[in-house]
């Protein structure tokens, strides 16, 4: 497993305290799990997505991420409607491990309140949390 100094933590995303990232892209927010999360989980086997069109609140469980040895719940970093999911992960779940912030993205949300992004952490705060 990686040392904290080895983790990739881009500047252009916000982080939640359950190790997910969220990036604003126009009217939408794209989300996935952080490099720390994928490293901890190990090789990703399968991602269970919510239905497109379903609406969840911030912090609500919306799916699961399975690795060989464990399953982790996915929570909405911001509340809103799920407008897209990364169907490519069905054939290539390893994208979550290889490119957690790009090719390994998981869900796209139309947020009900963009203000919720502010309550997420910036890179420095997340790094501080990891160092614990």
């Amino acid at each position, binding site marked *: 497993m990686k040392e904290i100094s080895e983790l990739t933590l881009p500047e252009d995303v916000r982080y939640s305290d359950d190790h997910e990232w969220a990036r604003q892209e126009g009217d939408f927010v794209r989300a996935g799990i952080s490099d720390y999360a994928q490293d901890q989980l*190990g*090789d990703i*086997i*399968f991602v269970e997505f919510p239905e497109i069109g379903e609406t969840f609140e911030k912090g609500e469980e919306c799916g699961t991420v*399975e690795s*060989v*040895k464990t399953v982790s719940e996915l929570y909405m970093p911001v509340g809103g409607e799920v407008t897209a999911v990364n169907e490519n992960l069905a054939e290539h*779940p*390893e994208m979550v491990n290889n490119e957690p912030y790009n090719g390994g993205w998981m869900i796209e949300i139309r947020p009900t309140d963009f203000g919720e992004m502010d309550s997420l952490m910036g890179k420095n705060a997340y790094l501080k949390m990891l160092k614990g």
Partner: protein
Amino acid sequence: MKEPLSTTGLILNEPLLWEKGKKGRSGFSLPQRDVDVFPMDDNLLGNGPDFPDLSELDVVRHYTRLSQWNYGVDSGMYPLGSCTMKYNPKINERQASLHGIAFSHPMLPAELSQGILKIMFHLERYLSEITGLPAVTLQPAAGAQGELAGMMMIKAFHQNSGSTKNKILIPDTAHGTNPASSAICGFTPVPVKSNELGVLSLESVASVMDEDIAGVMITNPNTLGLFEENIKEISGIVHSKGGLVYVDGANMNAIMGIVNMDDIGVDIMHLNLHKTFSTPHGGGGPGAGPVCVGKDLEPFLPVPRVVKKNGSYFLSQDFPQSIGRLHAFYGNVGVLIKAYSYILSMGSMLKKASQLAVLNANYLKERLKGTFHLPYDRPCMHECVFSDKLQEENRVTTLDIAKRLIDYGFHPPTVYFPLVVHGAIMMEPTESESRETLDLFIEACKAIADEAKQNPELLFEAPTKPKVRRMDETKAARHPYLAG
């Protein structure tokens, strides 16, 4: 023995069944046809399954070679915590394969089945004596099914008194089947944390106990190998709010003849015959999970039940409050026979077995502490839990230690369970292992700890001696290939 336990040998490759065989071969002696052919409607006829055709020697070589790739208790020590891999006496196998037992049909009239009914009746009495709980069912086919029966009985008990309690308290050290079994019954599991001594405290249970809690599921001794010393008081708290106490008896091997479950407030518990009572694990089953209950829960036991009347034995379904049937017939009778045979061979020496199991585990603990990190440095029961903390510096993990033990000729202990210990290594030697075997195991562990410091590559590459190296489990899960 001066040489190490493990060595190398000639292991033969063997293909899959359908990669060998030739159409027209046969390994079966087809019985004489003494009746005419009665043609069947063409519409109904299928093509028949496309099984390979093999000769008898094909079959024998196939399975003989496969067996040689396996490690069993008969090969060597299996210090698997919470599994109780004790010796499986051969005499028990003889009894289960007796013609009168193996060929018996379950639905014959009772008067033609007295032998087995008698065995079942007496086995219930013996298990009752060992646990201290008066009534028993032998029906559940495994520990997990026993837990399910237990949860159903708790639910039925509460429904019968008009209450709708829908939560179960489950300690953080619980085996995964515990929350799974309670969920199948529609209960919501409520977690309870163990304290710094590794056991449940009165305060933590009292803080979550309320009228909504149907019961608590406790493993005793728990999965850290520790006796839940507050269990009597905890039972008191749970009972005071109308809840019941369920004990997961997977670790019964530590306390036979030493603790009476009825006395400490237990209402219902299951046993694993394939653990405590020496029936073989079979590479994954079959096991048996009898459930023992106090008088209050007796009416809810699954049916049918074995009853004795006028000197004869019967199966009766006349128990209107029963939770019903869990098994098509009466449970894994073939396994019950083996446990019965074991109990008759041991008698009250079952207590000695428990004492020696606990002796062996404490001996391992004392000799290995310092080699591996011991999170709870206190007297243990029949198993002890270490962790990989001392091996962290070279990034050696529990998994690596486990795989390297294979190269030394031992089956690894249970790893990564219980979840409360990070990188847990749970060792249960059982009473079957002699001091010499334990010393060999201890030497192997010490050698591996040394290697972890000096030459960790040996652990990362392990195992190197079995037929295959570490398997690509990711590939197996990402691209499941589940049939040939």
